[in-house]
C-alpha cells in the first residue's frame, strides 16, 4: 500500500501518465487552494495582530487575562496528554498484541471522539457532573468542583483527544507483530523489561508523533471546553475561548495576538511533525508515509 503514495513502481507508471495540461491544472488547483485556505488566513492572523505595531501586540499578550488563558491552556494540555499517553499505549498494546473478545468494539470506541461533535463531548460531562446529575450531591458534599473549573476542562480535553495516541500506535504495532516480544520473553526478559526495552523503543517515534497531534488538539480545542468552561475571566478561559471573547469585544489586536500564539504553536507542531516524518518515516506506521 505504501508504494502507491511514496515511490511509484515501474508497472504503474502509465496510471499517472496524464498530459502536461491536466497535471498543471491539478497542481494549480492544489496550490491555489492551499494559498487561499491555509497560507492567507495564517498571514492575516499576523497582519491583524501587528496592525497597531509590535508595542500593542506585546501589550495585548501581557494582559493578565491573556497570560492566564495561556497558562490554563498549557496546564490542561500538560495534565491531559500524559493520561492519553498511558491510555493510548495500554489500548494499542492490548489491541495489537493480544486477541480477545470485543476487540473490534474497543477499536470503534476509541474512534468515537472523532465522530462525535465536540459540543456533545462537553455536554456528556455536564450530564455526568452537573447540578442535576446523580453524582452531584456527593460532589457537593465533598466540596469538589468539576464543571466550570480545571477538572472539567481537563476531562473534556481528554475525551476529545484520546484517540490520537492510540490511533498512531495501533497500525504500527499490528504491523510489527509480536515476534520481537516473543523473542525477548523466550530469552528470559520479564514482561516489564520487554515493554521498556523492546515494545516502547519500537514505537517511540510513532508515540512522539501521536503525542504531538494530541497536544496540538488539546491546545486548540474549542467546542468541548466551551461547554464546560463557565467562561470566568482569568480563571477558566482557555486560549481559544479567550480569542473569541476578545474578538467579540472589538479588541481585534488582542484577539489576533492570542490567535497568533496559537498559530505559532501549530507551526512548531507542524515543523516537528515534518522533521519526524522525514527523519523517521520508516519507523512510523505505514499509513502515514504519504
Amino acid at each position, binding site marked *: 500500500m505504501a508504494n502507491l503514495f511514496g515511490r511509484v513502481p515501474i508497472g504503474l507508471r502509465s496510471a499517472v501518465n496524464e498530459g502536461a495540461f491536466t497535471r498543471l491544472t491539478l497542481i494549480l488547483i492544489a496550490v491555489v487552494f492551499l494559498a487561499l485556505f491555509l497560507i492567507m488566513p495564517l498571514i492575516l492572523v499576523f497582519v491583524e495582530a501587528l496592525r497597531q505595531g509590535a508595542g500593542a501586540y506585546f501589550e495585548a499578550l501581557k494582559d493578565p487575562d491573556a497570560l492566564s488563558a495561556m497558562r490554563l491552556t498549557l496546564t490542561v494540555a500538560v495534565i491531559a496528554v500524559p493520561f492519553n499517553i498511558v491510555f493510548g499505549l495500554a489500548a494499542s498494546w492490548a489491541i495489537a498484541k493480544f486477541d480477545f473478545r470485543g476487540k473490534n468494539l474497543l477499536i470503534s470506541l476509541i474512534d468515537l471522539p472523532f465522530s462525535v461533535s465536540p459540543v456533545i463531548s462537553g455536554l456528556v460531562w455536564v450530564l455526568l457532573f452537573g*447540578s442535576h446529575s446523580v453524582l452531584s450531591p456527593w460532589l457537593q458534599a465533598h466540596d469538589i468542583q468539576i*464543571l466550570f473549573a480545571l*477538572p472539567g476542562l481537563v476531562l473534556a480535553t481528554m475525551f476529545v483527544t484520546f484517540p490520537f495516541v492510540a490511533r498512531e500506535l495501533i497500525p504500527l504495532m499490528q504491523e510489527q507483530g509480536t515476534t520481537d516480544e516473543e523473542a525477548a520473553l523466550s530469552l528470559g526478559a520479564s514482561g516489564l523489561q520487554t515493554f521498556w526495552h523492546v515494545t516502547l523503543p519500537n514505537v517511540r517515534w510513532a508515540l512522539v508523533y501521536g503525542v504531538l497531534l494530541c497536544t496540538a488538539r488539546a491546545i486548540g480545542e474549542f467546542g468541548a471546553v466551551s461547554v464546560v468552561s463557565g*467562561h470566568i*475571566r482569568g480563571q477558566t478561559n482557555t486560549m481559544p475561548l479567550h480569542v473569541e*471573547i476578545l474578538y467579540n469585544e*472589538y479588541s481585534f489586536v488582542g484577539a489576533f495576538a492570542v490567535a497568533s500564539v496559537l498559530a505559532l504553536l501549530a507551526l512548531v507542531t507542524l515543523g516537528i511533525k515534518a522533521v519526524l516524518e522525514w527523519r523517521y518515516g520508516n519507523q512510523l506506521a505505514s499509513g502515514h508515509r504519504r
Partner: protein
Amino acid sequence: MNIRATAVALAVALGLVASPALAKNIKLLNVSYDPTRELYKDYNAEFAKIWKAKTGDTVTIEQSHGGSGKQARAVIDGLSADVVTLALEGDIDEIAKGTRKLPANWVQALPNHSSPYTSTIVFLVRKGNPRKIKDWDDLIRPGIEVITPNPKTSGGARWNLLAAYAYAQKKYGSEAAAKDFVGKLYRNVPVLDTGARGSTTTFVQRGIGHVLLAWENEAFLAIEELGPDKFEIVTPTLSILAEPSVAVVEGNAKSHGTTAVAKAYLENLYTPASQKLIAEHYYRPSRPDTVDPAVLKRFGKLELVNIRDDFGGWAKAQPKFFGDGGIFDQIYKPGR
C-alpha cells in the same frame, strides 16, 4: 473503567488545592451576558474600592460573560454564581425554577423590578444617513434593507419585532395593521442571522443593508469601537424598554459566605455614582434623576413601551409572537 477512577482522583486532588478561602479576601462570581463586559469591568473596580473602605476586606469580582440563555443554563448546571446579571427576567426565572437557589419573587428584591439599568432598540445607519431613515415607517419603504437577527433563535431580535409592532399598533390603531406592518418590515430583511452579533457583523463588516436594528448600548459601542466616521444612531419616536435583571443567587452566596457582599454589590448599582457610570457605558440608568443631565444628553428622547404593561409579560408574548404558528410564523415567509 479506570478513566473515571483517575478522573475522580484528579478532581479530588485539584479540589483540595483549590478550595480553601482566606477570611479577608472575598471572591465574588458575577455571571452576566455579553454586552455588559465593559460596564462591569469598571464597576467592579469601583465596588472593590468602596467595599475595602467600608469593611477593610478585599473583594475580587470574577466575571463570566456569554449569551444570556446559555449563562442561565450554566448556572442551573452548577456554575456557582454569587450574582447573576442577565438580559432577561425570564432567564433568572429559569434559574429560580431549576435550582431553587433564589426565591420565586426575586424580582422584588431590588428597586425598579431589579433592573438597575435599561436599554432600548434603536437604528444604526451609515454615516450621514443616506437613506434618510427617521422612524419605523421608513423601514418598510420599498428598497430599504433592514438587518435584524431571527427572532426564533435570538432573544435580542424578539425585542426588535415587538418594538416595531408596538409602534404600528399605536400609530395605526389595530393589531391587524400592526401585523401587516411587521410583515412588510421583515420582507425588507435580506439576511436573517441567528444572533445579534452575527447581524452586527453583517451590517458593519460585510457592509450589507441600510439600517441595523440594535440595542442602544451595543450601537453606541459599535460606533465607539469601529469609528464615529462610519455610522450614526437614529432614535425612533417609539421603542421598547428592555430591563436587564440582576439578582443574588442566594443559595450559592450562602454556601460561599458572600451573602452580605453580594447584596451590597447589587444595591450599590443604584447609587448616583454607579448610575452615572452606567450612563457612561451607554445603558440608560434606571434612576436618571440622580445623574448629571450632561451625561444623559447622549440618549435620544423617545416614548417607551414595556413588556409587562403593553404585551402582558413574556409568558404571554412569547407564544403569541414567537411560538409555532405565532405572529412571526404568519408574517415571515422566507425567500420573498
